[in-house]
């Protein structure tokens, strides 16, 4: 049966492809930033307490497009792992008898 093909490999592949497109997108401020700028409260924003991968730009990668792609791929894989792991941890345990 086709159902045995891990469909979510394909879905994860699509998400990773989206991350590859990340350098091409609009760099205009988003809705909240726009409102903050127009209403004059943008300067209230405080810097982050610490920086790991700020602005979706992988530190130490000189090519900005590659830095964004690296950050995007890392984040996408990280989120897959966390989502999968969290759901696995929380799922009900006797499910195999109930739904096969």
């Amino acid at each position, binding site marked *: 049966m086709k159902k045995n093909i*891990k*469909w*979510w490999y394909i*879905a*994860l592949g699509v*998400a*990773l492809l*989206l*991350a590859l*497109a*990340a350098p091409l*997108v*609009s*760099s*205009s*401020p*988003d*809705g*909240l930033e*726009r*409102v*903050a700028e*127009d*209403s004059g*409260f943008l300067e*209230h*924003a*405080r810097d*982050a*307490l610490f*920086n*790991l*991968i*700020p*602005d*979706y730009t992988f530190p130490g990668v000189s090519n900005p497009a590659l830095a*964004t792609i690296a*950050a*995007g791929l890392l*984040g*996408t*894989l*990280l*989120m*897959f*792992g*966390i*989502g*999968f*792991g*969290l*759901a*696995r941890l*929380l*799922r*009900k345990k006797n*499910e*195999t008898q*109930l*739904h096969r």
Partner: protein
Amino acid sequence: MHIPDGFINAATAGTAYAVSAAAVVVASKRARQRLGERHVPLIGVMAAFIFAAQMLNFPVAGGTSGHFLGAALAAILLGPWAGVLIMSAVLLVQSLVFQDGGLLALGANILNMGVIASFVAYYTFRGVAALTGESKRGRLAATFVASWLAVVLASLACALELAVSGTSPLRLVVPAMGGVHALIGIGEGIITTSVVALLAGVRADLLQLQKV
């Protein structure tokens, strides 16, 4: 609409943290009762897709951009409490690892984009789908309306938090946030509806999973 630190005051941030934390606890309990083996990969893929798609800012009017939020997609496919869990995980990673959204403002961001957006989307979807007789087209229309409303109401909650914090007057920030997110919400509606329509075509069974 990720709020950075400094935009909302301590009382607002603290209250939002308390509400969001309670929502995450309830969401975890619901997940324990309802999550099955088949939900597991979908939740992983959903979190990954939402993170990646959120990076893709699309231009809206006047030198402004918006991006996909994803709460509506998660809530419509997996249920509102699953939406809360997935969005909380995404927002936590965005704040901790990518410095997108302040750490002190994380509770407010989860409240707006996780809790409010998921519940607004889910129940709007259910309501509109019922009104349209649960037809295929009706469900797609319901998906669009629910996604749009989720973004707009999340932005209004954000506006309210900014006003309560004394950052910007209510009469200015509410129409400003609502206006720009009414446009961004159209993008949300198009993306969410397209993904749901695609899934209905290729893996309709995934739309029938037990909602959490």
